[in-house]
């Protein structure tokens, strides 16, 4: 199966003129306004922006957790009508079920698959996030970072077409973070999984992403979409890299 540019365009995520307004005590609070974004299949997109500028809300819209919004969001030409297993999310809070072990939490998303397949995917993803030995631990027995890793394993095990990650690596120590970033990135490229990563780490966003989306608050808008056309592995010290990173920092200042 060869992917032509044409199928890419139809299989991608299309966000057109999207707006979202929450109501707080009856008064409207515009949270997202005029969002345009195209994300091709297999693309890695980083989203940066001050807290409160609607990054989590945008991910919730992509996942289909918010029914009430303006504009158009479509995946592969089909409008998104609700959550689906093709679109996975790692929430900012891990949201593991406290009454299930790590293994059973990962198995939640694998309902309906053959038992052997379930076992294989669980083992594979537990190893990937480095939680061997904690298969039967309950969430309260894990540290914050370990719980976050279990949540990543749970999302990856579903093998979604698109995986959105909401600051998933914040609770991790820097060594684990770098290792997991590498792994996530490798999986994304290998399985052509589209990834949307919300992060505070500008350097990391530029290092990984095919494009970096910079958002600004009140109401949440896209300030700039900065494409990064550099080959991997990227040279953090190269002039182009430094230049792009500065452009992102600049866009972040307002």
């Amino acid at each position, binding site marked *: 199966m060869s992917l032509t540019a044409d199928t890419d365009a139809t299989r991608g995520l299309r966000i057109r003129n999207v707006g979202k307004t929450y109501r707080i005590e009856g008064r409207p609070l515009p949270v997202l306004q005029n969002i345009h974004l195209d994300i091709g299949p297999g693309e890695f997109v980083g989203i940066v922006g001050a807290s409160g500028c609607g990054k989590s809300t945008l991910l919730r819209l992509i996942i289909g*957790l918010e029914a009430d919004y303006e504009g158009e969001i479509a995946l592969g030409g089909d409008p998104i009508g609700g959550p689906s297993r093709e679109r996975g999310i790692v*929430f900012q809070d891990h949201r593991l079920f406290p009454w299930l*072990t790590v293994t059973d939490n990962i198995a939640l998303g694998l309902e309906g698959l053959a038992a052997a397949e379930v076992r294989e995917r669980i083992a594979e993803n537990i190893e990937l996030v480095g939680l061997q030995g904690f298969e039967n631990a309950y969430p309260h027995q894990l540290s914050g970072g370990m719980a976050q890793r279990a949540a990543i394993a749970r999302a990856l095990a579903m093998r979604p077409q698109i995986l959105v990650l909401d600051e998933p690596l914040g609770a991790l120590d820097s060594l684990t973070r770098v290792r997991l970033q590498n792994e996530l990135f490798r999986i994304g490229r290998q399985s052509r999984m589209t990834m949307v990563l919300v992060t505070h780490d500008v350097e990391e966003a530029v290092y990984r992403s095919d494009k970096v989306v910079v958002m600004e608050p009140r109401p949440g808008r896209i300030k700039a979409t900065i494409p990064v056309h550099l080959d991997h592995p990227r040279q953090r010290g190269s002039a182009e890299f430094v230049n792009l990173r500065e452009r992102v920092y600049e866009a972040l200042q307002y």
Partner: protein
Amino acid sequence: MNVRLLAIPRASSGARESFRRVLSLRPPAALLPFLLPLLVLAAWQLAASRALLPVQILPPPALVLQTLVDLTASGDIVANIEISLWRIGIGIAIGCSFGLALGTVMGLSQTVDDYISPLFRALAQIPSLGWVPILILIFGLDEIVKYLIIAKACFVPATIAMAEGIRNIPRAYKEAATVLGLSRSATIRKLIVPAALPTIFGGLRLAFSNAWIALIVVEMLAAQEGVGYMMVWGRTLFQTDIVIAGMIVIGVIGLAMDAGLRRLERRLRRWAVPS
């Protein structure tokens, strides 16, 4: 207050120290639950032996014990307990299963809740025993009256606990369940039941204790057998020892049922953060 505290001379710190030592002289934890009952027993014995109250009203513990032994030997108490346990068992089974079922529907569907809630709340306000007269008019002194009264006593707390337990499941978990694509049955087994479990058990414990109240009162009002009837019978004979024996039986069985529920809950919630 502060001033006086400050004024305590340093010399008294020795006294405070020894007081603390007395406090720390605690019997092994396993014995602690028996301490208070033993004290009550001692006070009871003391009051009885000093004849503070006529013996018809406050018999000594030994007499009550003797009565318990006699009633057990004659089989009277066993037969009465058996009858009462059947009644409470059937009543609880009916009341709790209907309650948990209705609570589930009310918790899952806001529409159903909107329809049923006002009527349910109105009926729940009528104490279980308020139903006794009309049920006797309809069924006479039939066993069904006891079952229905006990069932009603369990039904209300079971329904409320189940509905609340479901309604209070954090939205974060519900969202996780939809994102993970859980089927309806998996959502019930893996999310709703475990998340609502603590609330459900709180409701069940309340249901059980309500059931006991209903059982004893209905047996006192409208029965010819059972532990409650035995107590009324003891009172009419001015045999307070039988009344107290009945109270002890109720207390012990009630405690055992509550302990059983707690154990079951602990088993089902092994995952919980140890407190």
